[in-house]
């Protein structure tokens, strides 16, 4: 099995290119059954930058939340995460692609235990998507434990932003 590794340093560059590509992607195939004014605003703004938009690769996207939050030391999916995940599941079945679920923990507790906790959270989201009909083979769960905080600082507010699963 071959593993290709870019020279350290290049990976950051690659990541930023991918992100830039995503942000200039036009929102064309949004889910037809949801009305979302935010999406329409984005479309208008993007049309203003016509040339950039037209040159960008066309990929189906959707607008539901991609970050799902958890309680301290828990890997139970919150009720408020469900609606967005139902949308994702429907969209993924119409537009199949491989996704990554990146699980994270706040800084409290030990690092390797938090790796396990991040994975449990990722698995909770995966199980929900699979129950909605998404093929498990399209979903990869990667835990980052407490290694990649979304919000810095040692406050309840920062911690609650860090206990999360990101759908990518």
């Amino acid at each position: 099995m071959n593993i290709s590794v870019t020279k350290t340093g290049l990976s950051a560059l690659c990541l930023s290119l991918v992100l830039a590509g995503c942000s200039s992607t036009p929102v064309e195939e949004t889910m037809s059954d949801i009305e979302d004014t935010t999406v329409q605003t984005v479309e208008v703004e993007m049309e203003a930058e016509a040339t950039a938009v037209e040159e960008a690769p066309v990929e189906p996207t959707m607008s539901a939340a991609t970050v799902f939050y958890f309680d301290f030391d828990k890997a139970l999916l919150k009720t408020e995460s469900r609606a967005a995940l139902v949308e994702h599941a429907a969209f993924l079945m119409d537009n199949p692609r491989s996704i990554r679920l990146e699980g994270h923990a706040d800084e409290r507790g030990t690092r390797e235990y938090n790796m396990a906790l991040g994975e449990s959270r990722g698995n909770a989201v995966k199980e929900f998507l699979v129950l909605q009909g998404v093929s498990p083979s399209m979903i990869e769960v990667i835990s980052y434990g407490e290694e990649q905080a979304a919000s810095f600082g040692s406050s309840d507010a920062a911690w609650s932003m860090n206990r999360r699963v990101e759908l990518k």
Partner: protein
Amino acid sequence: MLFRLLVTAKTFHSIAVVMVLVFTPVAAWGELVIRVTQGNDKPTIIAVAPMSTNGIQVLEDISAIVESDLLRSGLFKIIPRQNMLAFPQNADDVYYRDWRLLGSEYLVVGGLKDSEGKIELSFSLLDVTSQKTVFKHRVTGTEAQIRDLAHLVSDKVYKEITGIRGIFSTRLAYVTAELNDDKFIYRLNVSDSDGAREQLVLESTQPIMSPSWSPKGDELAYVSFETGRPAIWRQRLVGGQRIQLTNFSGLNGAPSWAPDGNKLALVLSKDGNPEIYLLDLTSNKLSRLTRHFAIDTEPTWTPDGKSLLFTSDRGGTPQIYKLTIASKVVERITFKGNYNARPSLAPDGRTLVVVHRESSVFHIATLDLKTGRMLELTETRLDESPTVAPNGAMLIYATKQGGRGVLSAVSLDAGVKYFLPAKIGDVREPAWSPFLR
């Protein structure tokens, strides 16, 4: 940067990546600085006379390094240099009365001389009370090894006076994370145990975690996310050759080198949830040790290599369990508190060090496995990753200071504490090396 990473095409389970390390210490601002915040009640009073250089150019003050080593142990009080009336270089030049008046119990004297292009350091430990030479010793090294020579002096003096083997010649591995243009740069570093001579082992834009020393102290195993997923690697410190050991789906974490050097305990979740496995480093054979739907992680070896201690939440909260490898029998070890994790054993095999949560605060605590007595060693809020010195006298752990990760040290009797603050980035996951010589 001071190093270059060369990566060639590589295949799983075969030697492939070549890392060229230029072993130049990074600039002084990146080094750790020590200050003792609390000392021992009855320290031994010692004077370390400045070593006579006898015309040899050296960039380091050997006696100052020895003073700092002894001070950091918490067991010594140092006579300040400015109070000394003379700087003798051998026992014959010593007026004991002068040193007795200063209150000194012991005196270290010595001097350098050239020995076929190398530096020879002769030094003596003198007992001021009995006015006798305790020992006279000689060490030789290159100019680049001046700090090594100084640490050898400290080791010899410490052993003679306390009866305990010194750890001044040991090293420390740790991970730093520095925010650079909204992205972290993760570095695995190795330094002397006093934080000096920091050397870069690995740099990555993706997380690096869980360094574990080989028992000989010549290799590190660690977790790197450089492939986009966590994987366990081993890397030689001299030469920098590295091998990727695991590439399973899910967790690949918490490597812990067996005392015999031939096996690695580690955590994989490839079979559904985190379990402890054993990887034979000679045959690459993997065997599963735990079978439970709960989280099993953070394995650490007992000194005899026959058992592992690990963290599991199989009882509802994270607690420490012991697994006897031959029988696979698992027994619970900790019961006090609702969070005990990241076990490690002191070399005596009896003192268990854990991260312990008490009323939502995380401390480092010890549990005497014979008496069941628990002792909280630290009182800050987010203390983690304790690592015990190979002589069992001190441990270093990661904590937060001013919102930033720093390393701190505490003696196992909680009597001595000092910080090793970094000047840049977030420092975490210290791992104390075994004895190196």
